[in-house]
């Protein structure tokens, strides 16, 4: 498959690009909700609009009312989200939770997917149990109790945790913390007794929670996939999330880069446009190269994932690591090349730096994924 968008995908890109630039623009969404200290960190009206365009159910199968598209298409939407810093539950709900629910029973899918597709529901995913992404270790426990389970433990960095109608939780049903087996995924509803959210606003003004589970009683049918066999679902969810957040990261990188290149063409110092200075031209050209290469890695990872290739896992980590480096460079160069104005809240470039920082940590940073590349390559 060639590494560029086909006609249908190019059309989707045009729709997504126009919609996010108009409706999802920084002033209209990110700044708007941030300045009102919105407890969700995003606007539900926009989420409904995204549903009307079919975006919310892009990865949901047609039999469940979705569009039944792939990760290339989800990535197209995510890149535009990134470019406009549009706050939305798309990544957690439509990519991560939707991927998990693909493995769920018909009953669970019927309970949750219509709300996702219609834009009435928002989902979160709870994997991490510390400040760094270490999904190899799951300590949060779910013990059998009657027909169901009792869930205890804590989860960190649960994006939209307090706003979510349902949280996909990875918990241990047997074995010890670092065993691959013995992990089970649960769909925990919003009103579950014993679940507590300590909500925190992050640097990019998104909302996350430290969530605790104190003997939360769950029905047996809250299980997504097989009891003790959840690692496979978890891996699928993580891979989709990594490739998805890499796509959003490419959008952040391109947004920051475009803004910076524009600025180089307008700002005068020493009586010249600063874009005339070779010191800045070379850094801008280097940045362009890195962002283009990262973008190629992302589309390759998306295609491999959609094709069900066994190479998808390696390429997902390559993409996540490469984007983290390239987008990190884009925002740092962006702020530096903007000079003093880049340090002001009024100007948007700093918002890109904040979003990039949050995306880098989400589902593993460049170090985590470079290490994975080494392990998957056998060294």
């Amino acid at each position, binding site marked *: 498959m*060639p*590494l*560029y968008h086909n006609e249908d995908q190019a059309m989707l890109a045009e729709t997504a690009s126009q919609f996010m630039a108009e409706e999802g623009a920084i002033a209209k969404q990110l700044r708007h909700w941030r300045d009102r200290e919105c407890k969700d960190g995003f606007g539900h009206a926009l989420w409904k609009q995204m549903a009307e365009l079919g975006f919310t159910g892009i990865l949901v199968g047609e039999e469940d009312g979705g569009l039944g598209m792939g990760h290339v298409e989800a990535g197209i939407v995510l890149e535009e989200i990134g470019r406009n810093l549009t706050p939305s539950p798309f990544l957690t709900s439509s990519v991560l939770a939707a991927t998990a629910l693909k493995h769920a029973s018909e009953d669970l899918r019927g309970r949750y997917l219509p709300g996702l597709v219609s834009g009435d529901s928002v989902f979160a995913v709870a994997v991490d149990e510390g400040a760094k992404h270490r999904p190899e270790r799951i300590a949060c426990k779910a013990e059998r109790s009657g027909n169901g389970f009792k869930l205890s433990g804590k989860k960190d960095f649960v994006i939209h945790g307090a706003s979510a109608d349902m949280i996909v939780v990875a918990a241990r049903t047997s074995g010890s913390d670092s065993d691959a087996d013995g992990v089970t995924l649960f769909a925990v509803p919003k009103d579950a007794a014993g679940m507590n959210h300590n909500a925190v606003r992050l640097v990019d003004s998104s909302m996350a929670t430290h969530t605790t589970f104190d003997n939360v009683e769950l029905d047996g049918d809250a299980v997504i996939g097989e009891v003790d066999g959840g690692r496979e679902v978890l891996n699928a969810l993580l891979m989709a999330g990594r490739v998805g957040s890499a796509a959003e990261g490419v959008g952040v990188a391109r947004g920051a880069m475009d803004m910076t*290149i524009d600025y*180089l*063409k307008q700002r005068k110092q020493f009586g*010249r*446009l600063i*874009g*005339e200075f*070779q010191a800045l*031209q*070379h850094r*801008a*050209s*280097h940045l*362009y*190269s*890195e962002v*283009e*290469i*990262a973008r*190629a*890695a992302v*589309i*390759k990872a998306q295609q491999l994932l959609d094709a069900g290739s066994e190479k998808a896992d*390696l*390429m997902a*980590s*390559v*993409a996540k*690591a*490469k984007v983290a*480096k390239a987008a990190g460079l884009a925002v740092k160069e962006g702020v530096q090349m903007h000079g003093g104005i880049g340090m002001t809240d009024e100007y948007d470039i700093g918002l890109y730096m904040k979003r990039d920082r949050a995306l880098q940590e989400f589902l593993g940073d*460049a*170090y985590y*994924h*470079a*290490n994975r*590349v*080494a392990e998957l*390559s*056998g*060294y």
Partner: protein
Amino acid sequence: MSDLDSFRSETRAWLEANCPPEMREPVRDEDDVYWGGRNASFKSDAQKAWFEACVAKGYTVPAWPKAYGGAGLNPAEAKVLREEMSRINARPPLSSFGIWMLGPALLHFGTEGQKQRFLNEIARGEIRWCQGYSEPGSGSDLVSMQTFGEDKGDHWVVNGQKIWTSYADKCDWIFCLVRTDKDNKYQGITFMLFDMETPGVTTKPIKLISGNSPFCETFFDDVAVPKSYGEDCPGFVGQINRGWDVAKYLLGHEREMISGAGGGDRTAAIGAAMKRATAKEGGELDPILRAELAMFDVDALAYACMGEKFLDEIKVGKAHPAQPNMMKYAGTELNKRRHELMMSVGGSRSLEWDSDDTDGGKPARNWLRTKANSIEGGTSEVMLNVISKRILDLPGA
């Protein structure tokens, strides 16, 4: 079975029958590479057999038209052939600047007479060509070249000096940029073709930091270059004084080639191989070195995706015309890093300049050779200038 599938199975069968086992080994020495030319000799019967089979089939230049010695393969078929050859590690039957550089220029700008004569000679490996571009004062600023051809009616008299002429001492003919109008910087250069045995041409090898001498200084002292080699066969490519158009076109090809966009070694991950190499020596990778290898592999694997994307986009005309500059910049910087890491993994062993263990200092010589990657064919700095100007559209760039 689609046409392409049946082409693949035919190709596989043909390679099985015609590519000798000795030609399926990695290239180890310079004489494992066959360059052709008037003074060429084969290293082995296998090399000769493989070369002759390919010439007969048009596989020294598979994508060229049959009339000019090629096999007339379309891009999809050419890709299949490349894949099938690389599957069995087949060596290229013929390496030549005629194939990589002059051929594409003649296919694009040449007259029918030039194509008939020169392309066929190249395809059959009869004439070995070198490239006369750089001059001592004109490296990155190529267009400032001084070598001058004085118009004498039916011929020019060329005087001047070229440098970095690859294998000039072993080549038969040169394609050469010569100034023919001193008043016009860009539109005063002619792309000439002439025999290296023409009186007045001399060459002198330059010894490099790698200890090898692939490059020469080339001197022209009253060299008479004919304007024509017969009917419809001019002694220059394109138009007189418009050689810069040809050179620019060719530089695009050269950058693509140096960037390694087509894949192969220089875009591959190395961590696993380096670990195996260290384990053989009874050592293990230092954790910080392992981390550097992992970061390199991320970059290399991502660059390989870019190479694939770039070739896919070229096929359908979606690639930006200046994208080869980006590929050249990123690919050569990556290749330098790759060899720095390989030297680090090799430790003191990789320092050995002439031992059997290192096959005559291969690691060190290869490492030193890569330092030219970001200089030859346009420096990294020039590539960045081009990206600034043509892709990012920065002011005054």
